[in-house]
């Protein structure tokens, strides 16, 4: 008889989750924009498809990225994910080969030992049983780590572990019960029949010596089925929804779909893909320097899923991008947070119906404030015409050494330039964007773009990475936009400036908006190597720290900002460099107050190293008198 009532919970759960996932995927696909729909369709063929399959294997199952970051945590995830996959895979084959007929219902594979208790005494059957036991042991080792991690997170090298709500806890408990109950169910059955391999067999035999194995097996099969069923039914409203969602995400991402500026299917899929692994929490300086532990990206994702009010969490973030860099699932955490900052920008309101099983998108007439013009007091004179515009930026005016160094360098290079905001200019608009006020920012962007266009310049050089990022991403200018380190590099390459070599040990701090934010990693370092002894640090390129002075966080106190700055400065000056070099006026100001080591912008170091041309005497000048000659 190949059926028993105990399989019913499992069946209900399994069919429920399968139907749910299919229905959800259809809804998600339906809600994509037309271009994204086409992208996704194309993504199911060709290279993208193969790439997605590979990524599913390497990331969703093996969790390669987590393994690289944190071996124990990665092992834990891998053993559960990959192990379970193997168990199902090989279990299905087992049921096919050794079962009564081919192509069985799923429950026959899962509960194989119950229906074939006599199986596996010798030969190939025994070998196969060994394999199944091995996979089970693999899963259980990871499960042990998971249980301990819940109570003592240091064992996986994590400083903190994510907090859970009630449904999460129930789902977690049922997940944890699945494999131990399988172990015990199989062991008791094996014990009663004298079958089983190294794990289930040995355990079963031992238990059978003092317990009535035959009778105890049945309740444990029930437990196994119920825990599976509960887990599947609760899955959609817990963080474990990430298991099916991540697959969908990988296909979408490899089809070229991006987050964009507004909430939509892709943001929703991403928020569900978050497995709450906690790597973003560990990477976050607000956590390890300032002890703030309720605003990291994992919590933001959770709050979005639960339709909580996210304004407090969304604005309490330096937007440094460290979590984006480390997220093993590849969720675009910072763009999603930016979307949350834009209050009232989303045209649609997501409502939870059926208590979280379905989020339905209902169009809400957003209370759009009437188009108020905020900055119409701005008047610009026609700017001077020049090939190159130098835009210092608001913050640079508070660090005049940077300003003066750039003037010195520009003068020495002989290029035709105009210092467009010498008397103080108009803000680039990015601080407004970071606060979620895109409309207002657009006004400033338009004004500045007009000025830049009127000057006829071909190149725009700026000293501030914050300005650099918005010029490049949101200005749609016709001109070449360069950060001053990139500009100095071109001057060096073109031989327009001659530089000495300063015998100083320098460590470079990569500003968030320039490095991770704009992917300009190399030019600043090359410029530094040209004029000084650049040393490496543990926090370079994508892994660089944030100075803490970011404008993006309006909720943090000064004391906490100071802690972040001091910790970061301490790390960077670990090997006692002569100079801590930066490429951002805000970083310079923040670090100057946090360390005794000299903090200097790259432009300052270059200006110090400049070899200025002596005044050339033009011998063909006619002189009217000796007096005039003396004055040349």
């Amino acid at each position, binding site marked *: 008889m190949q059926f028993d009532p105990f399989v019913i919970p499992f069946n209900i759960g399994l069919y429920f989750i399968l139907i749910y996932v299919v229905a959800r995927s259809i809804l998600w696909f339906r809600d994509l924009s037309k271009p994204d729909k086409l992208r996704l369709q194309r993504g199911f063929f060709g290279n993208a498809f193969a790439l997605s399959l590979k990524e599913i294997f390497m990331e969703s199952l093996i969790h390669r990225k987590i393994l690289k970051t944190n071996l124990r945590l990665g092992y834990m995830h891998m053993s559960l994910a990959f192990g379970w996959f193997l168990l199902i895979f090989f279990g299905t084959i087992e049921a096919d080969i050794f079962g009564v007929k081919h192509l069985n219902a799923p429950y026959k594979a899962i509960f194989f030992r119950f229906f074939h208790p006599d199986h596996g005494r010798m030969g190939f059957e025994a070998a196969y049983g060994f394999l199944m036991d091995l996979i089970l042991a693999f899963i259980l080792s990871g499960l042990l780590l998971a249980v301990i991690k819940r109570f003592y997170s240091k064992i996986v090298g994590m400083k903190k572990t994510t907090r859970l709500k009630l449904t999460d806890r129930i789902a977690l408990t049922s997940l944890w019960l699945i494999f131990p109950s399988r172990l015990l169910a199989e062991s008791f059955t094996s014990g009663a029949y004298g079958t089983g391999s190294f794990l289930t067999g040995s355990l079963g035999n031992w238990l059978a010596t003092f317990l009535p194995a035959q009778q105890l097996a049945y309740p444990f099969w029930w437990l196994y089925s119920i825990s599976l069923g509960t887990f599947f039914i609760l899955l959609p409203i817990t963080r474990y929804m990430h298991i099916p969602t991540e697959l969908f995400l990988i296909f979408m991402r490899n089809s070229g779909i991006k987050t964009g500026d507004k909430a939509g299917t892709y943001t929703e899929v991403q928020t569900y893909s978050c497995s709450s692994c906690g790597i973003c929490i560990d990477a976050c300086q607000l956590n390890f320097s300032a002890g703030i532990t309720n605003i990291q990206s994992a919590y933001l994702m959770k709050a979005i899923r639960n339709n909580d009010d996210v304004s407090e969490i969304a604005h309490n973030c330096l937007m440094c991008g460290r979590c984006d860099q480390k997220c093993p699932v590849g969720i675009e955490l910072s763009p999603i947070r930016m979307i949350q900052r834009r209050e009232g920008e989303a045209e649609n309101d997501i409502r939870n119906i059926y208590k979280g099983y379905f989020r339905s998108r209902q169009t809400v007439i957003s209370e759009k404030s009437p188009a108020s013009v905020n900055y119409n007091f701005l008047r610009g004179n026609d700017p001077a015409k020049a090939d190159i515009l130098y835009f210092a930026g608001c913050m640079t*005016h*508070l*660090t*005049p*050494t940077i300003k*003066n160094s750039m003037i010195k360098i520009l003068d020495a290079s002989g290029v035709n330039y105009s210092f467009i905001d010498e008397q103080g200019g108009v803000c680039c608009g990015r601080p407004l964007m970071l606060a979620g006020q895109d409309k207002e920012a657009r006004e400033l962007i338009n004004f500045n773009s007009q000025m830049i266009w009127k000057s006829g310049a071909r190149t725009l050089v700026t000293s501030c990475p914050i300005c650099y990022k918005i010029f490049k991403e949101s200005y749609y200018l016709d001109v070449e936009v360069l950060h001053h380190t990139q500009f100095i590099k071109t001057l060096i390459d073109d031989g327009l400036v001659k530089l000495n070599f300063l015998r100083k040990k320098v460590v470079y701090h990569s500003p968030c908006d320039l490095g991770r934010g704009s992917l300009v990693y190399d030019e600043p370092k090359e410029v530094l190597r040209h004029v000084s002894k650049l040393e490496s640090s543990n926090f370079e390129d994508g892994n660089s720290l944030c100075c803490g002075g970011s404008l993006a966080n309006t909720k943090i106190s*000064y004391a906490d900002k100071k802690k972040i700055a001091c910790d970061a400065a301490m790390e960077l000056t670990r090997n006692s460099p002569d100079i801590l070099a930066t490429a951002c006026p805000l970083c310079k*100001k923040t670090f*100057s*107050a946090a360390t005794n080591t000299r903090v200097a912008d790259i432009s300052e170091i270059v200006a110090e190293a400049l070899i200025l041309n002596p005044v050339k005497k033009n011998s063909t000048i006619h002189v009217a008198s000796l007096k005039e000659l003396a004055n040349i």
Partner: protein
Amino acid sequence: MKKHVVVIGGGVAGLEVAGQLSHSGIEVSLIEKESKTGGHLNNWYKLFPDRRKSSEVKEYLDRLSQNQGISLLTNTTIEGFHRNRNKFLITTNKGKELNADAVIVATGFDLFKSARKEEYGYGIYDNVITSADLEEKFRREEIVLVNGSVPETIGIIHCVGSRDEKVGNFYCSKLCCVTAVKQAIEIREQLPESKVFCFYMDMRMGGAFYEELYREAQEKWGVNFIRGKVSEASETIDDKLTIKVEDTLAGRPLKMKLDMLVLMAGMEMSDGGKKIAGIGGLRTGENRFFAATDNHTSSNKSNIEGVFYAGTCTAPMNITETISHARSAVLEVIDFLKDGKS
């Protein structure tokens, strides 16, 4: 057996302490890191509130401390500081070891390094100087710009390095306001054609005859006072300085070209004092100055029995207060040495 006290620091407080202790028959070793005593007093020309010459006070202190019982060790710093039962073992950088029955720390203050306020341009623009630089100019009777010409418009910025969260000094340095007023008068005295502007957040004239000096500055010398914190300074095309400030009382931004800018640098705990705090285990307060055991009733006592403080190493204070504080330290030490406990 004569008691031996080591006095660390040969400034105003240190000299007063050494002199008074020696008068009472106690052997003193006076340790000074520079080549001569006097500390910051050597840098001032005339002292507020009555604008008398600082050299007069220096002469008094020199006379007081010219005593056989004082052994003066100049160019000397402290490298080791150990307590051994009820004696102190002090090691100098020259390898000398001193055994003391009590120690008085009079390490004084350092002036805030104004280059840290980058937006004011000290060290970046010509003609931005500190109050200490200006005293030097007074001494040489030569208030001139870098290019040698005489300045016509001079701005004085109060609270540089004090009351400023951005440089980590929340406290008020107390003396800069009256210094600013005194220096404004002195500039006007030496350069009768000049115009002087003081940019302040508050006018803190908390001392005898300070407010009267403020009145005199306005009434007799025509010094101008503008309430507004200067946010930044910059250079103009014609090599003058310009500042960004809001005239808060008029409620409007103010534009002005200046020939010279004087920064009223605040007082900070001295580097020497920080070092001694570290090696001696002496407690400092949140303002980084030494913390006395009681703000009101024992402002000379440290957290270590037998170690006492005198002068500005505990808090910003003027010369009058420094000398008083030094004398009270002497009283504490004499008390302590009598019965071996404080």
